[in-house]
């Protein structure tokens, strides 16, 4: 089981890591918002591992002012339903972004939340993100 989870961690790395140092992924993210990579970024797909997604969403809601990370929600089937389910004050926070046009494809992002680490607006690593203990 652990090896399979590792595989899922490496899928995004393989997908993005081989493509000119994450260039195309960077472009996709910047098309959502030009400031999105000014901090490390937690990407939360709204479809996939339900428990993981709920955990990370709750963690981000509770800690958005202290974590110094941006948060992007993506793979959203129904924006109205999404806005009903997630706290509106949190969604309007300037570190929170919504991929309204589903620029990021579910197949490329996988089923777990991921952490995009950045340096000076460039992606330096992509890995699975789970709530710190």
């Amino acid at each position: 089981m652990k090896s399979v989870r590792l595989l899922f961690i490496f899928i995004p790395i393989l997908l993005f890591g081989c493509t000119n140092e994450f260039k195309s992924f960077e472009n996709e993210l910047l098309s959502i918002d030009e400031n999105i990579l000014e901090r490390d970024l937690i990407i939360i797909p709204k479809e996939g591992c339900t428990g993981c997604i709920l955990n990370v969403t709750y963690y981000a809601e509770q800690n958005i002012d202290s974590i110094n990370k941006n948060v992007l929600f993506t793979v959203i089937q129904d924006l109205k339903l999404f806005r009903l389910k997630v706290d509106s004050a949190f969604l309007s926070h300037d570190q929170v972004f919504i991929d309204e046009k589903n620029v990021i494809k579910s197949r490329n992002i996988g089923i777990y939340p991921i952490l995009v680490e950045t340096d000076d607006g460039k992606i330096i690593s992509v890995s699975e993100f789970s709530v710190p203990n």
Partner: protein
Amino acid sequence: MKNLIIILIILASCDSKKKTEIYFQEANGIEFNDSLSLEETAIISLNLDNETSFHHKSMKSLEIDNTSYLSFINAYNQHFYLYNLETGELEKKLKLDREGPNGVGHLTIFDHAYLSDSLLLYNTWDANLYILDYQGNLLSKNEILDFSKNSNSVSPEPATMKPIRKVGDYVFIPCSINQYLTDYSNQNSVIRYNLKTQETDYMINLPDNYNQGYWGATFKYKISFDMYGSDLISSFPIDNFIYRYNSAGKYLNKYYVGSKFIKEFEPFKEDINYGVEKDHSVPNQQQGDYSWSNSDYNAVIYDEFRDLFYRVAYIRPKKAELEAGRSITNFSIMILTSNFEKVGEQYFDGLKYHPTMILVSKQGLLMARSDLYKENEELLSFSVFNIAK
């Protein structure tokens, strides 16, 4: 002698490799009397409240006192909604308690049926069939499956396109498989529950195609049926035939009705044992790709107002399209006479018309419009299709 043994071994090994052979024919498939079509004649729009989004897993159209209505259960706020389709007005909104004396549990996979004096609700989560009055009071709670027994071989999974049906004292519930097997000859696909005697029994075995390989995700093993009088007309995702059973589950007949867009059914694995040997708790991208990129039949629907059947085929995206991000399937609708003669087939864009929200009404065939909802989230709109010659 030694050479002869080697030849025999080779022949025997060739013979043991079973090749999947799913029956296809041209008549009533590619070749048919193309005399009827579906013509878009109107749009019906319903005003949604602030807590209601587009997609609902349990949606019905119905007639009450000669007026057309549409009902659904909103899983977000767990309310029952009843709209007058002729005025577009919301006429009833009823809270369904999760807990307490009138509790129906948490609704995730479920279906409802509007009866003249009560609301029938099946909740897959706890496998109970609830009957409520239209004030939300619980009248009865019927346990359909006993989870303490390990013998439950079916997974009831009703939905808008695969609804529960009530005929007389019986409620019929469509099911998928609960686990993969090496032989599906005795695998039932419908639960029949007797409201009077409170007895559950199982009927309609999966057809032989399921013994010819491993077909991927469990939705490929899920029956669709509709009632024709007291008979069940059933369809399976990977079988060109439509089957007719009586209400006791006795096989009556089968009819070949193929889509002109489906040329073959190839299993994910020819070895049926793969399903038993595989650890299904682990996500399987290959299986997902196979399941979402291989076309299948979804629903068979009886149109009582026109005495026609519709068979919906999901014409799924190719793997490359899937990889490029296409996840919604297109679909075709075959028009069949009540003798199952195919008299039309039409292709629809799944990004425009939602493939899981297709309903028969007195006005015509209703198809929910995903594209219009994206333009205005306050409206749930349906295109109305009528039969044209």
